[in-house]
C-alpha cells in the first residue's frame, strides 16, 4: 500500500517502521510483502457512531484484534452526515483505492456489488452458528445469489415508536408501558395497537398541543416510517419483478389514511430531516416519534425531565401486519483491497456474539445485530431511566412484527431511487399539501417510477 495508501499521520510513521522489514517493500506496492511475516496492514472505514462511546468500543475491539493477529490497523470513522459515507464509497470505488473494509449503508452493496469481494464463506459459518437472519438483509446484501457484504452490527438500527408515557396516557388514554412492558408479556391492548388507534392518539395529542413528530421529507427517518406504513396497508408501488403496481386499493387506502393522519401533524413535517423529529421530542413539543434510542439518550443528557418519560415500543400494525422500520448497515471488503484475508477475518470476528454484545452495550442498545438470536442482550433490559426504555427496541417474537425497509421488494436498482428520492413521502405531500386527487397522485407516481425503471 505504500505510496498509494492512506498516508494518515500516525499510520504512516508506523508504516515506515514496517517497511524496514523488507527494503523492497515500497518498490513493490502490488505485492503484500508483509503478509508473510505479519498480518499486514488494514485500513478500515467504519460508521461514525452517534454516541462517542460507540466509536471507542469499536476502536478497542479492533485494536485488540489487530494486536493479536499482528495486523497494523488504521481506523477511520466516516460520518453519514451530509452523506459523507456515500461520497467516500463513490470516491474509493472510482479511485480503486482507500480503505480495505468499509461500512456500506442500505443500498450501496447492490450499487457496488461488482467491486466487492464475495463473502459467502463468512455468511455460511455465521448462519450456522447464529441461525436465522431477517429477509431484509438478504435482500440488501445478497446480489445474484452471492453475499457481497456482511450485515453489520454497528450502525444497524430499528426505528420503532418512541413515545412519551405521560403524554400518551394523559391525552390519548394509552398506557404504552402496560401495552408493551419491559418483558415478554404484552398487555391486553397490544393487539389493538394499529394505525386506527394511532390516528386517534395523533388527533388527541395534536389537540393537546403535543403533536406526533413524523417527518415526511426526503431523509431516511421519513422514508423509513412511511415505508412501513405503506407496507402494512399492502401498498406496494413496484413488485419484486419490477412491475409498477401503484394503481392499487392498498395505495389508495394508505393515501386516504395519510390525508387524515397528516391533518394532525405539524404543517412543516414535509421538510423535516433526521434531526427535526429528535428535537421535537427532546424539546417536549411532541408525544411520539419514530426513532432509534439516540433521541432518548440525548434527552437524557440535555432534558432529563423528558427522557424519564420516554418509552420505545413497536410500530402500529395495519391490515397486512406490523412492520418495524429497519435501516441496516453492511461491512464489505473491496475487491481491490490488498489485504482481503485479514479484512475478511476481521469482519467475521466483529460479527460474533461477544463483539456484538460489546457494541450493543457501548451504544446504549442502539446497534441491532442482524441475527434474531442476538436480540436477547441484557443491555436492552437494563438501560434507563426509565428502566426498560429500550427493551422493545429490537424486534421481539411477541411483537409479531417484521423488520422492514421501505420500497422492498422492488428490485434494488429501482428501489434505491424510490428510497432516496422519497417517492412515498412525496405522494403523501401531493395529497396533503397540494390537495391533489389521489388518482392524479398515483398517475404522477407511475410516471416517476417509469423513469426509475430505466436501466
Amino acid at each position, binding site marked *: 500500500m505504500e505510496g498509494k495508501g492512506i498516508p494518515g499521520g500516525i499510520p504512516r510513521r508506523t508504516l515506515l517502521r514496517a517497511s524496514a522489514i523488507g527494503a523492497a517493500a515500497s518498490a513493490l506496492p502490488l505485492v503484500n510483502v508483509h503478509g508473510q511475516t505479519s498480518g499486514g496492514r488494514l485500513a478500515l472505514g467504519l460508521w461514525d457512531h452517534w454516541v462517542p462511546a460507540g466509536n471507542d468500543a469499536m476502536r478497542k475491539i479492533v485494536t485488540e484484534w489487530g494486536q493479536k493477529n499482528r495486523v497494523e490497523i488504521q481506523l477511520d470513522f466516516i460520518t453519514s452526515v451530509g452523506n459523507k459515507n456515500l461520497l467516500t464509497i463513490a470516491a474509493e470505488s472510482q479511485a480503486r483505492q482507500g480503505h480495505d473494509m468499509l461500512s456500506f449503508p442500505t443500498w450501496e452493496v447492490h450499487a457496488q456489488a461488482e467491486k466487492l469481494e464475495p463473502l459467502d464463506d463468512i455468511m455460511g459459518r455465521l448462519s450456522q452458528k447464529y441461525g436465522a437472519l431477517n429477509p431484509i438483509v438478504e435482500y440488501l446484501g445478497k446480489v445474484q445469489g452471492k453475499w457481497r457484504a456482511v450485515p453489520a452490527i454497528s450502525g444497524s438500527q430499528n426505528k420503532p415508536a418512541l413515545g412519551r408515557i405521560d403524554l400518551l396516557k394523559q391525552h390519548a388514554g394509552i398506557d404504552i408501558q402496560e401495552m408493551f412492558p419491559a418483558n415478554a408479556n404484552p398487555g391486553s391492548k397490544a393487539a389493538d395497537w394499529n394505525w386506527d388507534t394511532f390516528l386517534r392518539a395523533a388527533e388527541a395529542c395534536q389537540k393537546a398541543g403535543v403533536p406526533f413528530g413524523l417527518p415526511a421529507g426526503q431523509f431516511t427517518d421519513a422514508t423509513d416510517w412511511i415505508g412501513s406504513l405503506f407496507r402494512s396497508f399492502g401498498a406496494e408501488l413496484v413488485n419484486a419483478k419490477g412491475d409498477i403496481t401503484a394503481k392499487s386499493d392498498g395505495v389508495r387506502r394508505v393515501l386516504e389514511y395519510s390525508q387524515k393522519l397528516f391533518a394532525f401533524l405539524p404543517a412543516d413535517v414535509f*421538510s*423535516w430531516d433526521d434531526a427535526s423529529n429528535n428535537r421535537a421530542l427532546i*424539546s417536549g413539543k411532541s408525544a411520539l416519534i419514530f426513532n432509534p434510542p439516540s433521541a432518548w439518550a440525548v434527552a437524557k443528557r440535555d432534558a432529563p425531565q423528558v427522557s424519564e418519560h420516554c418509552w420505545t415500543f413497536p410500530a402500529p400494525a395495519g391490515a397486512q401486519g406490523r412492520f418495524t422500520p429497519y435501516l441496516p448497515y453492511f461491512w464489505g471488503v473491496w475487491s481491490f483491497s490488498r489485504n482481503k484475508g485479514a479484512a475478511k477475518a476481521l469482519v467475521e470476528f466483529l460479527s460474533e456474539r461477544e463483539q456484538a454484545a460489546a457494541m450493543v452495550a457501548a451504544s446504549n442498545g442502539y446497534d441491532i445485530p442482524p441475527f434474531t438470536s442476538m436480540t436477547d442482550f441484557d443491555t436492552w433490559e437494563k438501560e434507563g431511566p426509565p428502566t426498560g426504555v429500550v427493551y422493545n427496541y429490537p424486534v421481539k417474537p411477541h411483537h409479531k412484527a417484521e423488520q422492514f425497509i421501505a420500497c422492498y421488494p422492488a428490485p434494488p436498482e429501482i428501489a434505491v431511487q424510490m428510497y432516496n428520492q422519497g417517492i412515498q413521502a412525496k405522494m403523501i405531500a401531493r395529497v396533503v399539501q397540494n390537495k391533489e386527487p389521489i388518482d392524479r397522485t398515483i398517475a404522477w407516481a407511475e410516471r416517476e417510477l417509469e423513469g426509475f425503471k430505466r436501466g
Partner: protein
Amino acid sequence: MSQGTLSAPVGAEATGRPMLRRLARRNSTVAFLLTLPLILLVLGLVVYPFFYAVYLSMLNRRMTRFIGWDNFTFLLSRETFWNVVFQSVLFAVSAVLLKAFIGFVLAHVLHALPSKGQRKWRGMLLVPWVIPPAISTLAWWWLFDPSYSAFNWALLGIGVDPVPWLGATGWARFSVILVNVWYGSPFFMIMYLAALKSVPDQLYEAAAIDGATGWQKLRHVTFPMMRNVISITVLFSLIVTFANFDIVRILTNGGPQDTTHVFATYAFQVGIQSGDIPLGASVSLFMFPLLAIFAIFTLRGVNKRSKEMA
C-alpha cells in the same frame, strides 16, 4: 478588475519599432513559459476532467455502455427535472439580482460616509462573507428549525404565527435565496466599493456644476464607470450561484416536494445517492452551454467597452 482587466490582451501592441517587435517575437517563448503553470492547471484539473465528465454523462447507469444523448433526452422528459430547471433559474437570478442591488446600495452608502467611520461599518458588513458558508448555513438552519427556531420565537413574541421557514414551498424558496443573499452581498459590496473609489471626483464635480441631481449622477457618471465591474461581478456570481450546493443541501435537501432543488443538489441526489453517476453528470452539465454563451457575450461586451475607453 474591470476595464483594465479586459483590455489586457489587446492593450499591449508593439508600437511599431522593429527592435521591440523582434523582442516580442523572441519573448513569446518566455510568455508561453510564464503561462505554462496556468495552462497545465486548467488542462489537467479542469479541462480533462470536464471532458471525462461529458463522456461519463453519455454512459448508462452501470457505466458499462455508451448511450449518447439518452441521459439528456431522458431528463428533458421528466417533470421533476423541469422543476429543478425552474427553481435553479429562480434561485440564481433572484439571488444575484438582490446581491447586486444590496451590494450596490451598501457600496454607495459606505462610500458616502466619512472615511473615519467607514472601517467599522465595513468590518461588520463583511462578516457573512468570512464565515465558511458550509457552517454559517448550519447556523441559519438552526434558526429555521421547526422546534427551536429563534426567528419564530421572536415572531411569537410580537404575536405573529410561527413561519414554516423550510416547510412550505414559498417560504422554503424564500429562505434558500435569503441565505445566499446574506452570504454573497458583501462580496458585491467590496467589489463595487473598490470600483466607486476609482471614479475620479472631477467627474462628479463636473456633473454637479451641470446641475445634475443625485439620480442623474448615478445614471450618467457612476453607472457607466462601473459597468465593467458590475458585469464581471454579476457574471462571476451568477456562475457560482448556479453551481451552489451547500445552502440548499443543508437547509432543505431539495424539499418540500423537490421544489427547492437546484442543479447541484439534484445531481447529487441522482448521482451519488441513487447510484446513477452518468445521469448526475448530465444534470450538472445541463446549464453549461447556456451559461457559456452568456459568459462569452458578457466578456466580449466588457472587452469592447474597455477598448473604446482605452
